[in-house]
């Protein structure tokens, strides 16, 4: 049974500070500095979780979050890694994925059914009869998930930090420390990160009991912590590598987005398990896990252990365990112990039996935990021999049979890895520019060699940065394998797990391969090996070894699956960061809000939709009436605004827009329609000539940036002498409209508003309410009206002045809805509503706006092709006054002969006309129809008579000759 040891030299726990917590409904105490796993073990709790599929009891395996045995839930915090989660007071933990708790997990009955559930069983089951599949799927979904989401969880987003450095060193073990120091001492700004809360890497665990290593560690740490050129970030996971050395560091406080100029990956290696029957029992663990527990947390993992060895570190682990008071019953070495170096002699000197060419063939359980092992000698082909099998009672089994490089970042950077017999793992063969590897991830194992490898990597990184330093040679990878080539043993009764996350046994992989999934990627997809929460850290390499052997191919020929981000899963709160939603407000926003405006989004802008408190329909009708009968004011500051100066300004506009604009007369405006290269309408607005070489343009709200970019591009491509200035944010704009407009505006402006001095479509510069202003007399809403452009800073003053001056004339602010209604009455289109992503000017009945007699304009050649191919046209329709039938909505379909023949693009009840009017885009094949058959909600059909547009004031007298309107209003 595991227990707490007396104080250890390097323990992280603070024995003066006790922490109480709950696990599975029982109270426990640990220390500050404990992980959840170490605290539970110290309390003698050795079953920490249940497995994914069979609900087998599971304990600490890697103690490093390289497996998903101990996933827990604490309130809304789910899938907590007990191995690396720091103990906190008040934690109330439970194992995930149990039915009725960890101890009495009713899910364990699944294991009785195991023979029925071989790999891929669900692909071959449950689909017949079809009607029952939803029931089975529900069952499967309930069995499959891990943590349970708390949909009331209110965890806050975490802010992000940006950081920069010359050299990023990932991993603060011996090679990373040596690399960081060498780089910093040459003057580079270094960031050193490690996922552990303290530096040292394997010096803290596998070398934790080695005196010589202790001295090295002390020296490195002292120099590193004192060096001003090294920013050390403990507890930071380098979660992925992205283009141009962009590495996100995940910390408890949030995401640090780090830009480096060079990256040294010194991330070490994952210890790999052996595969044999019972290798998942609580009590079986990686030797490095046991060393971590002893050295860092002063936890004795067991009382009596067997060590399963295939490299020198196994023997160091045996010595560490003996020192911690654990009885080491035997070391079973898969190879020849004589090749393992000095620690073997030390182990033998303690009287510990060392068995050569011997495997742990089976781990046996009592009460769901390890009770003993069966050892078998290996024959010449490394097959276990049944003769002379030995059984040893033990509550611990430490495996040290091999390593796999923690190469995720290297893979993501584009490194090509190849298998090397020495040291028996994949090693980098070709690294991308600016990325370097050092230490065990580079296949270098001896401690002194790792230091040298780190220094050499630093020298290469410095050279990459152009910092001249003498190049150090790489130390090489020694002469011994540190990983066994095939530490995998078949057993007729199975339960020899290759992947603990996914509960995959050796036979599952064999079966998958036999069924045709004998390519590493297909094997992964069919069996799900490596797809669990630890993403294959302990299983991918063994799966590759299994498949290579089954196929009779080499490791390199077999290949590996792609190492995708993330290295460890990353919380959404860290990735998402703070919530920033750009929102643009016009200068008059506060006024609108204070006057009951309901806002709507227009791109990033907010615009008044209508002004309450009346409900929308009533408010919009009143606003429309005000414009038709009196005067109204609308904020149109969101329109795009561009000024064009220069000799070729007119030429540019001719080439960019469909109409000819270069011949606009001084102080006049003209409609401006833009299409793309394929002839599709992208924008419309107004162009005003303010000087011989000076134009002012407006665009729709959402196209403002795009049109500005297009004009800039065309000007550069054609080498035109034009300067373009984006005024959208600098200028605000408002449109005052209605028969009483002049009465309101005239007293406030020095511009002569008389029809003779300022005709329809004219543009004038002057002042409004003392503010310099550009006035354009436009007719979008079909009344006398002026669009007034003023500097944004003074716009609110102008607006307020107009509203004040208009009070006696009953002025009303009006919003986007009223404007939509007003323009609909005039039959004017809204780009993007009455047109779509395929509409040409011909589809919108705007052939008049296309001037083919210009030498060139954007989209001209396409429009020439399309001129007689237009499929659609826009028509107006009007329902009879008093119509009481079902009303069409926008995008209801026009039907002809049972087929779709168009759609309603705009519709509204016109207060001015007392009837419902609308626009429809219909297929030209319909010809001149008298009415449209429209399918409305519920599938009913209705008829809408087609009428000419404009619906209102068809001769446009009101906007051109305002006296007409005034007489009508009077």
């Amino acid at each position, binding site marked *: 049974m595991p227990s707490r040891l007396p104080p250890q030299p390097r323990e992280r726990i603070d024995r003066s500070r006790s922490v109480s917590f709950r696990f599975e409904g029982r109270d426990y105490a640990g220390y500050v500095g404990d992980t959840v796993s170490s605290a539970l073990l110290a309390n003698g709790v050795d079953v920490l979780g249940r497995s994914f599929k069979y609900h087998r009891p599971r304990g600490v395996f890697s103690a490093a979050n390289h497996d998903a045995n101990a996933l827990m839930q604490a309130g809304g915090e789910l899938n907590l890694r007990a191995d690396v989660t720091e103990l906190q007071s008040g934690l109330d933990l439970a194992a995930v994925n149990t039915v009725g708790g960890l101890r009495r997990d009713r899910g364990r009955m699944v294991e009785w059914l195991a023979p029925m559930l071989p790999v891929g069983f669900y692909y071959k089951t449950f689909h017949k009869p079809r009607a029952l599949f939803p029931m089975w799927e529900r069952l499967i979904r309930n069995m499959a998930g*891990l*943590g349970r*989401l708390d949909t009331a969880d209110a965890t806050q987003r975490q802010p992000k930090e940006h950081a920069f450095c010359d050299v990023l060193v990932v991993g603060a073990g011996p090679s990373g420390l040596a690399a960081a120091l060498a780089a910093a001492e040459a003057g580079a700004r270094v960031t050193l990160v490690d996922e552990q809360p303290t530096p040292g890497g394997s010096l803290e665990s596998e070398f934790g009991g080695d005196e010589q290593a202790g001295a090295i560690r002390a020296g490195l740490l002292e120099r590193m912590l004192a060096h001003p050129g090294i920013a050390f970030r403990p507890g930071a996971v380098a979660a992925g590598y992205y283009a141009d050395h962009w590495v996100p560091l995940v910390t408890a406080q949030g995401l640090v987005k780090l830009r480096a100029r060079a990256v040294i990956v010194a991330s070490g290696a994952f210890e790999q398990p052996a595969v044999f029957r019972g290798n998942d029992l609580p009590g079986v663990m990686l030797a490095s896990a046991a060393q971590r527990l002893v050295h860092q947390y002063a936890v004795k993992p067991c009382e009596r252990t067997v060590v399963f060895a295939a490299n020198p570190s196994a023997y160091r682990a045996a010595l560490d365990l003996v020192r911690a008071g654990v009885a080491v019953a035997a070391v079973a070495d898969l190879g020849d112990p004589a090749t393992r170096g000095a620690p073997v002699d030390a182990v033998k000197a303690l009287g510990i039996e060392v068995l050569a060419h011997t495997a742990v063939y089976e781990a046996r359980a009592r009460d769901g935990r390890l009770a003993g092992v069966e050892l078998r000698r290996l024959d010449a082909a490394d097959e276990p021999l049944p003769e002379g099998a030995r059984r040893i009672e033990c509550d611990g089994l430490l495996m040290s049979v091999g390593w796999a490089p923690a190469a995720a970042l290297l893979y*993501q950077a584009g490194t090509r890895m190849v298998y090397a017999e020495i040291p028996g793992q994949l090693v980098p063969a070709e690294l991308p520019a600016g990325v370097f590897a050092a230490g065990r991830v580079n296949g270098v194992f001896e401690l002194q060699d790792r230091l040298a490898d780190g220094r050499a990597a630093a020298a290469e990184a410095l050279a990459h940065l152009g910092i001249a330093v003498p190049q150090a040679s790489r130390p090489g990878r020694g002469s011994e394998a540190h990983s066994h080539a095939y530490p995998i043993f078949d057993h007729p009764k199975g339960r020899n797990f290759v992947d603990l996350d996914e509960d995959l046994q050796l036979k599952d992989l064999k079966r998958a391969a036999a069924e045709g999934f004998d390519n590493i990627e297909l094997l992964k997809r069919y069996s799900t090996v490596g797809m669990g*929460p630890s993403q294959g850290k302990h299983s991918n390499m063994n799966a590759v070894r299994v498949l290579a052997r089954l196929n009779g191919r080499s490791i390199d020929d077999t290949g590996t699956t792609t190492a995708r981000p993330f290295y460890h899963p990353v919380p*959404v709160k860290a990735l998402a960061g703070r919530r920033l939603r750009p929102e643009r407000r016009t200068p008059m926003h506060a006024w609108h809000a204070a006057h009951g405006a309901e806002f709507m*989004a227009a791109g990033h802008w907010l615009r008044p939709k209508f002004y309450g408190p009346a409900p929308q329909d009533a408010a919009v009708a009143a606003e429309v009436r005000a414009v038709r009968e009196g005067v109204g004011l609308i904020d149109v500051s969101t329109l795009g605004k561009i000024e064009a100066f220069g000799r070729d300004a007119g030429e540019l506009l001719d080439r960019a827009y469909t109409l000819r604009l270069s011949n606009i007369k001084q102080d006049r405006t003209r409609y401006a329609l833009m299409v793309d290269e394929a002839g599709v309408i992208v924008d419309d607005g107004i162009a005003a000539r303010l000087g011989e070489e000076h134009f002012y343009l407006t665009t729709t709200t959402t196209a403002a940036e795009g049109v500005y970019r297009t004009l800039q591009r065309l000007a550069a491509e054609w080498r035109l002498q034009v300067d373009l200035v984006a005024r959208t944010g600098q200028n605000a704009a408002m449109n005052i409209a209605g028969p009483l407009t002049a009465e309101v505006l005239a007293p406030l402006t020095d511009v002569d508003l008389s029809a003779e001095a300022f005709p329809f479509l004219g543009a004038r510069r002057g002042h409004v309410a003392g503010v310099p202003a550009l006035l354009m007399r436009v007719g979008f809403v079909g009344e006398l009206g002026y669009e007034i452009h003023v500097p944004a800073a003074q716009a609110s003053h102008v607006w307020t002045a107009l509203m004040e001056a208009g009070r006696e004339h009953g002025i009303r602010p009006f919003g986007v809805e009223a404007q939509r209604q007003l323009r609909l009455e005039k039959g004017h289109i809204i780009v993007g509503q009455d047109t779509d992503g*395929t509409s040409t000017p011909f589809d919108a009945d705007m052939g008049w706006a296309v001037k083919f007699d210009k030498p060139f304009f954007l989209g001209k050649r396409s429009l020439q092709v399309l001129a007689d191919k237009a499929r659609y046209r826009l028509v107006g329709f009007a329902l009879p006054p008093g119509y009481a039938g079902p009303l069409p909505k926008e995008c209801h379909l026009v039907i002809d002969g049972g087929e779709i023949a168009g759609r309603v693009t705009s519709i509204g009840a016109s207060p001015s006309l007392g009837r419902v009017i609308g626009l429809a885009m219909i297929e030209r094949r319909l010809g001149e129809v008298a009415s449209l058959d429209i399918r409305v909600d519920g599938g009913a059909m209705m008829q809408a008579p087609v009428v000419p547009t404009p619906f209102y004031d068809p001769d446009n007298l009101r906007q051109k000759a305002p006296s007409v309107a005034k007489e009508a209003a009077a």
Partner: protein
Amino acid sequence: MPLRLLKNAIDPRPDARFFTQPERLKKRYDVVIIGGGGHGLACAYYLAKTHGITDVAVLEQGYIGGGNTGRNTTIVRSNYLTPEGVKFYDQSVRLFQDLSDDFDLNIFYSRRGHFTLAHTDSALRTMRWRAEVNKHYGVDSEVVGREDIAAACPELDLDCGGHLPIQGALYHAPGAVVRHDAVAWGYGRGADRRGVEIHQKTRVTGIRVDGGRVTGVETDRGAVEAGAVVSMVAGSTPRITGMVGITTPIVIHPLQACVTEPLKPWLDTIIVSASLHVYVSQSSRGELVMGASLDPAELHSTRSTLDFTEELTDHMLDLFPFLGQTRLMRQWGGMADMTPDFAPIMGTTPVAGFYLDSGWGTWGFKATPVSGMTMAATVASGRDHELIEPFNLSRFERFALVGERGAASVGH
């Protein structure tokens, strides 16, 4: 308890191989299909099953289903905007519904209901347009209000944290998720059992054309003659069309996706938000499978970017503010072959005997069965199947584009 499970216990031997391994390429095939993804395997399956054409080789440069078939977010739906699109995808959904039976392999066809959220008036208008066109062709779609969304997915924050609140949605009841790999395996196994040869790790390096007619292909394992060659390679389309000297509008953009760790089931529906550029469903394993819009620039790579996961999670929290402590486990990318009108390019080409199945952008997986079926019919007859006539490459020359672009602001 299904009997099949008992059989597993009684007879623990593996089932027969899904795909046999032909030793070498033959000298000639009636039909060579380039690309062993879902589309290529489906085409081979229907050629053999429906048209009795079994002298077929599927050449796959990597492994079966390893391209976009295994990289998409597994959503199946037919709520498109254009009549051409609706009819085509409706047929696909119908075929999907029967695939488990056809294959005797469970593809986990799981009908979940599909909500495309509208955050603005104009989005709601487009939803109505799609719903009306769908209903016209008998496809079950309708515009629903906030209450209906709340009833189906009470976890959703309809106010999106105060920014761009949800106004309504296009609800498409048949929207489903499917185990994508199983679709490829089922078609592959079915084709293999009918005599089709599937050659993995076989890369096409050239296509032979003689007098305007295709005569065979060259591969890294030698040349083969062919009566017809069908290119079904999604992201590799420009490389293949270059071999026969034709150009297309196709450009390749990466499309990325990601999954969280497995969670106990809580999300039954498929949720899509065009304004927030996200879509999400929960797989039968419990992972949230999430995607966003295309990467903006052309690129022939399946690399991942950090900005993708940052933006996606940021927006996902607007919809589901309680996901902060959930962990994102893995991200990946595919190569989407985009067209200017967001519709595929299928059927006959200017080169006799050379057929294209391409332009799958972000909508390829859901078209797998119908593409296989219509392309098989096209190859068998030499004439474009009526469902794919509007998708012929020649439409661009004729300025006769498909109007799907009106609706697709987020691809999936």
